[in-house]
């Protein structure tokens, strides 16, 4: 296995684990806007399914690929890449899936907590709208 294939594998595992962590956090904090699911229990199950297998693979990495070594800096880049893709994927897909089930109630338009009532797309739309109305005043 080439170092590129190993790095790709590493990044995909990070992508899965980060998606799971975001869902666990969404369920824990009640951030309905970033979860793919309506019920907390579904989000927790999804989190377990996406976090535990990648961690199990990382735990046994040296046994699986004894000569496959990703150096520290490459690990860092792969982690950042996997995290960014997971974040964009989670925020994007949840915005699509929840576009009708969540009404864009602008209750709190401040920080991550705004995503309790809105999807990320709705929050950004509200932000642009409020900026626009501030400019026109």
């Amino acid at each position, binding site marked *: 296995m080439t170092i590129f294939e190993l790095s790709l594998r*590493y990044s995909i595992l*990070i992508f899965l*684990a*980060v998606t799971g*962590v*975001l869902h*666990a*956090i969404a369920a*824990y*904090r009640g951030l309905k806007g970033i979860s793919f699911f309506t019920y907390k229990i579904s989000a927790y199950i999804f989190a377990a399914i996406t*976090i535990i297998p*990648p*961690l199990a693979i*990382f*735990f*046994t*990495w*040296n*046994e699986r690929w*004894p*000569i496959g*070594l*990703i150096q*520290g800096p490459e*690990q860092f880049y792969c*982690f950042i890449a996997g*995290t960014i893709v997971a974040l964009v994927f989670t925020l994007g897909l949840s915005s699509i899936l929840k576009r009708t089930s969540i009404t864009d109630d602008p209750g709190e338009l*401040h*920080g*991550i*907590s*705004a*995503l309790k009532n809105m999807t*990320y797309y709705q*929050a*950004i739309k509200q*932000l642009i709208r409020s900026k626009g109305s501030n400019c026109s005043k």
Partner: protein
Amino acid sequence: MFEVDKQIFLWINGLAGRSAVADSIIQGIANDYFVIVSFCLGLLAIWFGSTSKEMQKAVIAAVISIGLASLLVVLSNHFYFRPRPFTELPTNLLFYKPSDSSFPSNLATILMAISIPIFWTNKKIGSLFIGASIITGLARVYVGIHYPFDILGGFILALLASLAAIYILKIMKKYFDLLLRMLEKVFLA
């Protein structure tokens, strides 16, 4: 002093090979991926899961600390090379053979560099991180790739890096507050 280090190494590493189950578990803990990935996922969970600004600042301090600790490791490797224990002593080696300097342990340094800023802000969560760092350090000795002083040296470098990171965060507070406000505006903090 190095004699004491070697004696402690021989004692800890001498425990290896007695139980296949214990060896497998400790190999998993000692590897280059599992604990560091878990720590980074932990930082991410703290960032998005915490409602406290101080915890988010602790995550920023941890990231700065990782950068500074890496720099200290590179500098240390530039001036001092210590051979790995398996090249000098009879070792139960449960790992591949790294060729870089044994001192300091890169992984132990980075893990502790993440742990200290978190501990500075939240003793409970920070203790978990520090405990995991110590266990990983011991695991690296158990599998035969580090002397105990490599781990201890890494922890000392991490302490220096963490204190520097916390100081940087303090003197550049207004810029980091601005960064947090900007991330808050786009719903990412």
